[in-house]
């Protein structure tokens, strides 16, 4: 039983990371109908930025609230800036182009970010500051929970709930949804579409940045090419939940993390990915637009 609970904790932790990354995919998709394949690489980039920020501001081994807050804020800022730049340079010129052209541009952008990281920080695995979070851990009835896990679970839930309310209850949130539906019509309402798209990229990239830093803190070893895997998993999570749908991305991420942990724990390590995709395909066979994706019948 405690093994099961331990697997739950493991799964939820990784699931929250997927969810954070998936939100970035889903938001950009929702507004621009673009699968931002570069998003995963931004996540990896963030971990490296965090590494450098910590390295340049604090002496090795510092564990303080100030360090955590400043690394998170500064990295999120840098990554958000790069995200906005990405949109400006690689996606905005393609807004009226066929959808798949932007996908190719995104794939190219992913290559650019990934290889820039490699050129700046080198091809080798880098070690994220071990002392970033205290190495405290709690053992509750046989289940072990680390401080890092608690941070991941709590901060990501706060961010996700906050985002949900932002999108559904505020004027900017409604404007974001409006832009998602019809950009020209949104302009005619006086909505600055470019600004909304920028906001989307800032939020999405910043959430990805948070995920990237957590990945660094949780796993320690970061590589320039690790973004692809997180990107793919998060993308699968977003699709599972129904792409474009914000609660869907959260649900998808958590579900994916949990499912993965359970399969690995109880059935097979070798076939974990196969099970994941079989689950995805089964879900899609029965719900072609994901779990929470609305089946909007096209009006003809």
């Amino acid at each position, binding site marked *: 039983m405690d093994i099961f609970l331990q697997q739950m904790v493991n799964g939820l932790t990784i699931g929250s990371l997927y969810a954070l990354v998936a939100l970035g995919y889903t938001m950009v998709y929702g507004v621009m109908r673009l699968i931002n394949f570069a998003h995963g690489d931004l996540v990896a980039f963030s971990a490296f930025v965090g590494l450098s920020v910590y390295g340049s501001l604090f002496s090795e081994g510092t564990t303080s609230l100030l360090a955590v807050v400043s690394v998170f804020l500064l990295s999120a800022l840098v990554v958000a800036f790069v995200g906005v730049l990405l949109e400006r340079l690689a996606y905005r010129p393609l807004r009226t182009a066929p959808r798949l052209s932007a996908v190719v541009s995104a794939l190219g952008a992913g290559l650019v970010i990934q290889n820039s990281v490699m050129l700046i920080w080198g091809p080798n695995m880098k070690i994220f500051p071990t002392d970033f979070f205290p190495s405290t851990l709690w053992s509750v009835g046989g289940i072990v929970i680390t401080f890092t896990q608690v941070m991941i679970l709590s901060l990501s839930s706060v961010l996700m709930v906050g985002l949900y309310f932002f999108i559904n209850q505020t004027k900017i949130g409604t404007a974001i949804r409006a832009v998602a539906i*019809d950009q020209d019509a949104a302009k005619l309402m*006086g909505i600055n579409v470019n600004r909304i798209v920028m906001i989307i990229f800032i939020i999405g990239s910043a959430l990805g940045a948070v995920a990237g830093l957590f990945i660094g803190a949780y796993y320690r070893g970061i590589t320039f090419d690790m973004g692809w895997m997180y990107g793919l998993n998060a993308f699968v999570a977003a699709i599972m939940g129904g792409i474009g749908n914000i609660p869907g991305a959260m649900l998808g991420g958590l579900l994916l993390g949990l499912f993965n942990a359970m399969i690995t724990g109880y059935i097979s390590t070798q076939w974990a990915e196969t099970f994941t995709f079989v689950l995805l395909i089964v879900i899609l066979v029965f719900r072609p637009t994901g779990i929470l994706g609305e089946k909007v019948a096209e009006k003809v």
Partner: protein
Amino acid sequence: MHNMLLEVKDLHVNYGAIAAIKGIDLNVARGEVVTILGANGAGKTTTLRTISGLLKAASGSIVFEGRELSKLQAHEIVALGMSHSPEGRRVFSTLSVEENLMMGAYTLKKYDQATLDWIYEILPRLKERRKQLAGTLSGGEQQMLAIGRAIMSKPKLLILDEPSLGLAPVLVKVIFKAIKAIAKSGVTVLLVEQNAKAALKLADRGYVLELGKITHTGSSEELLNSEVIQEAYLGKKK
């Protein structure tokens, strides 16, 4: 002329290599209802989209309340007090009717309850469907919503592109009545219509656009009585 709300001078608009608008002049005075008539593809929609900033003019000037618009973007123009209800409705399909109306008031700090009540009064169907997603409304309902949404920003100039397109006769009447009420409340209206007779009845003045050029202009009565116009647009039958 100081009472001109909108002045368009020598406007040219191209789609790629194709010239759609070939130098038109057009004025709308404060409080007026002006209509633009013309066959399919004459360039009416193009003209309106250029005025509201969705398209960029190749040359020419558009002056609104003394301000040159050609450098401004569409969303900035809305903030100046111009509102455009586009051809084909373009309502936000997965927002509710009410949220659509709220978006209409985006440029205001807070939406105006009186305006909202008034919209619900002249277009009661919207009130009934307040919570329904706009995309599941029928065409006519969507048109009502598009107009309602456009007046939520309390514009000085309301631009309507074919508001009666695809509407039942009874609804055409409702819509025209609503436009009349809107105009009466002091809003200036620039109207494009296929339904020339109804449009001219409503308008003070009219322009006739043919292949990107203005061929006739005059007061509604003049146009209604003009032989040429009658033949071309009013379908003088039998």
